[in-house]
C-alpha cells in the first residue's frame, strides 16, 4: 500500500504544504501577541516608577515634565467602574427577562438582534451620540458624560455575556424551582443569579476590560485634565487618552508618561481578562451541575 501514482504524490504534497501554511499562520497570530506585549513592556517598564504611579502631571498641559499619571489611573478606574456597575444593573435584568420571563417570544428575538447590532457599533459613534445627548442636556465634558458613553458601550457586551451564562444553567434547575411554586422573580433572583454568579462576575469583568481600554467613546464625553477626579461634572483623565494625547509630544518626558500609561492599561486589561477566566473556572467548581 505504498503507491507512487502521481495523484497520490500530489495529494500528499498538497497536504503537507497546507499543513505548513496553517502552522505558520497560527504562529504568526500568536507571535503578533508576543510582539505587541514586548513593545509595550520594553517601552513602558523603564517609564514606571513610584512617582509615575502616585503623582499627577506637573507643569501644565502637554508641557509638564514631571509628575505621573495618577490622574489617568484614578479617572479610568472611576469611569469604567461606574459604567460597569450601571451596565450590570441594566444588563442583568434584561438577560433575566430574555431567558426566564419570556424566553422564546418574538420580542426576545428582536431584542437579541438589536443587542447583536449594538455590539458592533464603533465606539466613536457611541462617543458622538453621547456628545449630542450631552449638548441636549447641557452637560459638559465630564466624568458623568464619560460614564454614560461607556455604559452604552458596555451594555451589549454585558448583556450578551449574562445571556450566555444564564443559558448554560440546566433547564431542570429552573423547572424544579417553578414546580415548587415560586414566582419568576424568585426563580430569577434567588435561584438563577446565585447559580450564575461566577459567570456574572466574569461577564462584568469582561465588560470592564472593554470599557477601560476605550478611547474613542470618552474622547468627546469625558474630556481630559491633569487633575485628580473630584466631581462628576468636571472633566476627567483616562489612561487611553493619556496615551493618545501624550504620545505625540516632542518632549520625551511626556512621552514616558504615555508609555507608562499604556503599560498600566495593558496590565489591567490582561489581568482582568486572564483573571476572569481563572475566577470562572475556580468558582464554577462549587456550582450545581
Amino acid at each position, binding site marked *: *500500500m*505504498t*503507491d507512487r*501514482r*502521481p*495523484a*497520490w504524490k500530489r*495529494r*500528499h504534497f498538497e497536504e503537507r504544504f497546507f499543513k505548513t501554511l496553517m502552522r505558520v499562520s497560527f504562529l504568526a497570530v500568536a507571535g503578533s501577541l508576543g510582539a505587541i506585549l514586548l513593545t509595550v513592556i520594553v517601552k513602558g517598564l523603564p517609564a514606571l516608577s513610584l512617582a509615575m504611579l502616585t503623582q499627577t502631571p506637573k507643569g501644565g498641559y502637554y508641557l509638564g515634565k514631571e509628575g505621573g499619571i495618577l490622574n489617568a489611573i484614578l479617572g479610568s478606574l472611576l469611569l469604567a467602574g461606574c459604567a460597569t456597575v450601571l451596565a450590570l444593573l441594566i444588563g442583568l435584568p434584561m438577560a433575566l427577562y430574555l431567558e426566564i420571563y419570556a424566553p422564546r417570544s418574538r420580542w426576545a428575538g428582536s431584542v437579541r438582534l438589536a443587542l447583536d447590532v449594538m455590539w458592533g457599533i464603533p465606539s466613536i459613534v457611541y462617543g458622538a451620540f453621547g456628545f449630542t445627548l450631552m449638548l441636549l442636556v447641557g452637560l459638559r465634558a465630564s466624568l458623568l458624560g464619560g460614564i454614560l458613553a461607556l455604559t452604552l458601550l458596555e451594555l451589549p457586551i454585558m448583556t450578551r455575556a449574562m445571556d450566555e451564562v444564564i443559558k448554560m444553567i440546566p433547564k431542570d434547575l429552573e423547572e424544579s424551582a417553578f414546580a415548587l411554586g415560586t414566582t419568576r422573580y424568585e426563580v430569577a433572583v434567588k435561584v438563577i443569579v446565585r447559580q450564575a454568579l461566577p459567570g456574572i462576575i466574569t461577564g462584568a469583568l469582561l465588560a470592564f476590560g472593554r470599557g477601560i481600554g476605550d478611547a474613542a467613546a470618552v474622547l468627546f464625553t469625558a474630556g481630559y485634565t491633569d487633575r485628580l477626579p473630584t466631581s462628576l461634572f468636571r472633566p476627567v483623565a483616562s489612561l487611553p487618552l493619556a496615551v493618545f494625547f501624550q504620545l505625540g509630544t516632542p518632549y520625551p518626558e511626556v512621552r514616558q508618561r504615555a508609555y507608562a500609561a499604556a503599560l498600566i492599561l495593558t496590565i489591567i486589561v490582561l489581568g482582568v481578562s486572564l483573571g476572569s477566566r481563572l475566577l470562572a473556572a475556580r468558582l464554577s467548581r462549587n456550582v450545581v451541575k
Partner: protein
Amino acid sequence: MDPQISVRDLNVFYGKHQALRDINVEIPQKQITVILGPSGCGKTTLLKSLNRLLDVTEGVRVTGQVLIDGENIYAPAVDVTEVRKKAGLLAQRPYPLPMSIYDNVAFGPRIHGTVRGRDLDVAVRHYLELAGLWDEVKDRLHAPATRLSIGQQQRLCLARGLAVEPEVILGDEPTSALDPVSAQHIERRLLDLRGQYTIVLVTHILRQAKRLADHMLFMYMGDLIESGPAREMFANPREDRTRAYLSGEF
C-alpha cells in the same frame, strides 16, 4: 480461500478504557460477515479498526495487527489513505458531500485519479446502477445531493463508496436510520454485491443478521465470544452467551 482480513491480537483503548480485548479473527473473502452483539460491545470499534478510521478519534491507542491481503495496515510505513481506498465505510447516517449527485459519485475517482474525462460519466452511471439508484436520479445528476430522500442518500453513499473501487465494504448499521423500504433496498444491494466484494456489517438486529450473514462474529463487552459460518452459529451456538443472545435473552 485465504481470508481477506486477518485480525491478530487487536487491542483498542480509548484513553484508559479498553474497548477491544485480544481480538483474533479471520474474515473470509467475498462473503458477508456480520458482527453481532448488544450495544456498547465494541462492534463499531472493531469495524472502524479495519480501515483505520479509528485514527480520527482523539486519544485512541491500537495494538496488534490487522492484515488485509497479508499486509498489516497498522505498520508504520503504511499510507492511511490507501488503506481506506481498499476498505470503504457505509455509515449509519448518510452524509452526502455538499455537492451534486454526480460529483458525489465522481469524488472518489477524481481524488484518486483512477478515472478521467468522459470515462467518468460511464463510471458514475455504473456505480449508481450498482447501488440501485440510477433510474431515480438519471435526469437530475447535477442536482444537489441533499435534495434526495434519506433512503436515496444512503444508496448514493453506497455508490460513492463503490466508486472508489474498494475490495472491502464496511457497513456500520447502514439501515438503522432508514425506513423499511429503503432498508430492504440496501439489504438487497448488499446481497447482490456479495460475490464481488468482501462485506463486513455491524448490526444489532438479529433478523437482519439472519437475512444477510454468511459468516458471523458475536461480540460482548469488548471480547470476541464466537465466530463461524452463520448457519452453524444460528443452529448450534457453542458458547452460552451466544445462545442467550441469539434467543433474544438480552
